[in-house]
């Protein structure tokens, strides 16, 4: 337990160890730790950012969905309105067409009956003339009494 040269030897040894540690041991370890710390911090920040973006996207998606729903119901309402309109128009057109058909049918019937009456009148006139001719045979001259016969025919 004497104090001797060991004291100086230990001091030098200690100094060399500290120097070595300061030069080759401490800086690389600390810088590796620092870099890793930064990486982890960056990773966490990125994760946070990702989460935030996800939230935003979800919000955007629900907004878009809402818009789409609104638009779809708009379109449906419009389409229903349009369909109603078309049906109304079709009803109108059909009624007009029907009226028109009825009118023309009536006109035709009128014409037909007129024509039939004309024909009947002609036949009756001829019949009357023939009858009257048979009765009058000689007294009545068809040519001389044509205007009289015509007047009768018109009265029928």
């Amino acid at each position, binding site marked *: 337990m004497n104090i001797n040269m060991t004291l100086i030897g230990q001091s030098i040894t200690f100094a060399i160890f500290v120097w070595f540690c300061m030069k080759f041991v401490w800086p690389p*370890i600390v810088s590796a730790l620092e870099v890793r710390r930064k990486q982890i911090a960056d990773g966490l920040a990125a994760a946070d950012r990702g989460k935030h973006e996800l939230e935003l996207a979800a919000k955007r998606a629900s907004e878009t969905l809402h818009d789409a729903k609104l638009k779809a119901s708009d379109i449906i309402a419009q389409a229903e309105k349009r369909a109603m309109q078309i049906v109304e128009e079709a009803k109108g057109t059909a009624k007009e067409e029907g009226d028109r058909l009825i009118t023309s049918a009536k006109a035709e019937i009128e014409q037909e009956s007129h024509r039939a009456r004309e024909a009947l009148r002609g036949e009756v006139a001829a019949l009357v003339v023939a009858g009257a001719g048979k009765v009058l045979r000689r007294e009545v001259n068809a040519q001389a009494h044509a205007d009289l016969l015509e007047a009768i025919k018109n009265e029928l």
Partner: protein
Amino acid sequence: MSAEAHTSTEYIKHHLQNLTYGQHPDGTWGLAHSVQEAKDMGFMAINLDTMGFSIGLGVLFLFFFHKVAKSAAVGVPNGLQNFVEWIVEFIDSSVKGSFTARNPMVAPLALTIFIWVFLMNLMDLLPIDWIPGLASALGLPYMKVVATTDPNATFGMSLTVFALVIYYSIKMKGAGGFLGELTLQPFGKWGMPANLLLEGVNLIAKPVSLALRLFGNMYAGEMIFILIAIMFSGGAVLALTGGVLQWAWAVFHILIITLQAFIFMTLTIVYLDMAHQEHH
């Protein structure tokens, strides 16, 4: 050396003597074979066991830490790297907690002190006769395993720290500032002799207490192991008691060796912090 061959006193003395190499009074160089011979060698002698164990452990420490430092990966660390990083972060937070100035030397210094002192102290937990027994089988007269029970080792460190304290005091405050700190407080310039006495004692007490605290704790712990080891030669009951006691003391000693390494480191940081700061 087993206790049967010696009296208890011889056994204790034997365990407290370093393996000293130096010049005998007759002019020849060689190992000291007795306590008196070692004493006669004076200052020009060297304790081979202290030097050997301390350098060996220091190299071991630097080897492992340097291995990690060389391959320090930023990605997922492996087992050894985890362990080393854990220690480095612990030291780093200790330094950041008590050292306010900026000096890239303090943290590596603290790391070296902590691990080196811890490893030297750790040798205390080896059963006390293993390595000395092996050494005596190899023909070496003495072998002291725990370097920190040699005041040369503890003073070697504390004086180096002291030199750093003086160096940084002068570097930070200038020679005038440092001298002023020693002589102009606490009583002002008219109380200069008293100031110098007080501050001088204060200054000198730092390395002395630093070295003696570590030395005293480890020496006392070692002494208790030696006393317990003497019980092994006192019959079955005593040997059994000794075994239990040795185990209990070793468990308790784990706390002491770590604590002493931590205290040495923390006080070194604090002293260097004080050296970096203006007092008023």
